[in-house]
């Protein structure tokens, strides 16, 4: 008797859940920690779910390192997300080569024409479109205006590498920590190395190295970038214990006004307040932006930029609703809202006009005028060589490895992969 009751109850529950099972679920995995961005995305998902009954779009968050470590396994299991955050570059190419991405060239052609071409091209592999970008960022020096004034440093005067080193010396003399860097996670230090490569070698440097020209990564460009980085580090400009500082801690140090400069991407603005000891961080008027200085005799231009292009890639097994949502997501009105709330710098043409924050506006203008945009080196070169670049940047800065040995190590990793 009891068993029959149980079986009946189970059948009822199964029957009631059938309509729920008929709903299409679309999961999107991401790493974004900036609060306005997450709020905006949840809003877009809610709008879409409301206007498309039978489809449930959900954003799922995973921390940066965990995301990178887990994704290869997830993509090959039944647990795979339908869409996932991407920095393009070598990892995206490996994912495409393994047949895990969907070719959406035809589906999103109309949306792509509304976006910046640099961003769109970043998400193409061998001519086919595998993802849609939503953000472009530039890495630049964020500086604390009050601390600069205290040391008598004028940001407008910092154009070349020697001006920059002079400013660092002045800050140190005034008893201020010139630079904060989260070298515990290594990738913040590679920003310096990457920018130096761009300033010294210009737009062909990376392509030449990948093609193994002039000794590949052992060539003069990479060695000199290492020498310049070592030159900077020799002035001891970083905060005490910088080798174990995490990225979040470094954002807090900047927000607490304990260091004058931080070479970082736009998300710093959203992170410096929550991570600071006071919780309030620096006021927006107290923060300025300084472009990375040019290097004497460098082939790169002052208008070359280094930074990321971020977007979502579509899994091969994703339902068509996923691509449909991607197009919905890419509408100009949402891009404008992203700009207005300082969630990120949108790639939809014309949406930058909606950016209110003067700092974000400055970055957007830089990107629009960019003569060459280099993706983060640790993404562009793929997971193996990328991590070696991160390791070597920290090693050269700390004096652990000579610039030549570091360049040789990068070349060795490129050959072994």
């Amino acid at each position: 008797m009891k068993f029959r009751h149980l079986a009946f109850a189970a059948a009822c529950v199964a029957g009631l859940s059938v309509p729920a099972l008929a709903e299409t679920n679309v999961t999107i995995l991401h790493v974004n920690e900036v609060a306005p961005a997450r709020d905006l995305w949840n809003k877009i998902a809610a709008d879409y779910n409301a206007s498309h009954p039978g489809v449930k779009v959900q954003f799922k968050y995973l921390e940066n390192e965990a995301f990178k470590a887990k994704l290869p396994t997830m993509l090959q299991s039944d647990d795979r997300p339908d869409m996932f955050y991407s920095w393009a570059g070598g990892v995206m190419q490996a994912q495409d080569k393994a047949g895990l991405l969907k070719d959406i060239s035809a589906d999103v052609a109309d949306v792509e024409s509304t976006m910046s071409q640099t961003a769109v091209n970043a998400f193409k592999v061998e001519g086919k479109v595998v993802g849609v970008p939503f953000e472009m960022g530039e890495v630049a020096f964020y500086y604390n205006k009050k601390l600069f004034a205290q040391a008598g440093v004028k940001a407008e005067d910092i154009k070349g590498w020697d001006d920059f080193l002079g400013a660092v010396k002045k800050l140190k003399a005034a008893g201020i920590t010139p630079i904060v860097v989260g070298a515990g996670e290594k990738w913040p230090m590679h920003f310096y190395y990457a920018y130096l490569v761009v300033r010294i070698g210009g737009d062909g440097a990376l392509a030449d190295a990948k093609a193994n020209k002039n000794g590949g990564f052992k060539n003069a460009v990479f060695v000199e970038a290492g020498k310049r980085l070592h030159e900077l580090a020799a002035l001891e400009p970083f905060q005490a214990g910088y080798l174990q500082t995490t990225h979040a801690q470094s954002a807090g140090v900047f927000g607490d006004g304990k260091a004058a400069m931080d070479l970082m991407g736009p998300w710093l603005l959203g992170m410096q307040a929550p991570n600071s000891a006071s919780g309030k961080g620096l006021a927006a008027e107290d923060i300025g932006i300084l472009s990375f200085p040019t290097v004497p005799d460098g082939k790169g231009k002052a208008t070359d930029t280094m930074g990321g292009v971020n977007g979502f890639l579509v899994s091969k097994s994703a339902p068509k609703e996923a691509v449909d949502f991607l197009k919905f997501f890419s509408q100009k009105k949402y891009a404008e809202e992203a700009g207005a709330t300082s969630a990120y710098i949108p790639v939809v043409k014309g949406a930058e006009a909606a950016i209110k924050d003067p700092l974000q506006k400055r970055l957007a203008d830089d990107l629009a005028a960019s003569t060459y945009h280099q993706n983060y080196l640790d993404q562009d070169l793929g997971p193996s060589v990328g991590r070696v670049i991160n390791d070597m940047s920290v090693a050269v800065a700390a004096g652990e490895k000579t610039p030549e040995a570091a360049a040789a190590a990068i070349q060795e990793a490129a050959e072994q992969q």
Partner: protein
Amino acid sequence: MVLSTLATSYLEPARRMNANGWAIVLVFLPPALLLFTVFVALPMTEAAWYSFYNWNGYGRPERFIGLTNYRYLIGNATFLRALVNNGLVIAVSLVVELPLALAAAMMVAGRIAGAAAFRMIFFLPYVLADVGAGLIWRYMFDGDYGLVATIKGALGLQPYYLLADKDWAFTAILIVIVWKYFGFYMMLFVAGLQGIDKSLLEAAEIDGASPWQRFRYIVLPQLGPMIRLSIFFSVVGSLQLFDIVVPLTGGGPFDTTHTMVSFLYYFGITRMRVGFGSAVGVVLFFICVTFAIGYQRIFMRDD
């Protein structure tokens, strides 16, 4: 009656098995054999196979490169450092941790007041998850905000960033390991100590043996099997150390605090060089198997 016949046929290995004996083998062996094959033998064989390929973990391995991964491994300075680190962990376990556990066991094995409470306190670190312990100690060792920093600040000393120090960061890991595992071995030794025949110790005392002589000639030999077992667990556990390294140092300043398994994870898996990681796994397997079989044959023969 049939059962007793079968039972005797098992207890006397010299006798050949009859048909009933084989039937029992065929019924009871497959489940265990299946589990062992699927979870132990198969992964090991697959890992050995993957180690001959240059494979990024996506799809099937396609680029056969033979023994090249092993060649890269032998020439890799970080891996050699990881081997040294594993050796350090084994040495510290045997020289510091086990004697400490024995000393603690001697103190709390008796029926004195509070012995049970202290046994629990010493055992508590072992119960903590490795990752939790690593995170807690990372905070403690932090140069700016940790417990060590607060003490130093109170004494008026400059902050010291132990986890960023190339030469001493591994000491931090060793401290955490001793703190975490000595309680477990202490419990093993307590069990061993409580099993020693009291009359032996009384007889020795009557004969005029000093506490040290009683310890050396009665307690230690009686604890022999337990000590040999603890050494075995300790060495095998040290070879597999991973969970504490990741939250504490992540491989440490300039890759100086890697162990073989953390090297496998960081240089094989996160860099999407699964073939290379598999080669590390195979090397680790051979080291563990050689130790396990050699140790059991030589030292645990009579236990």
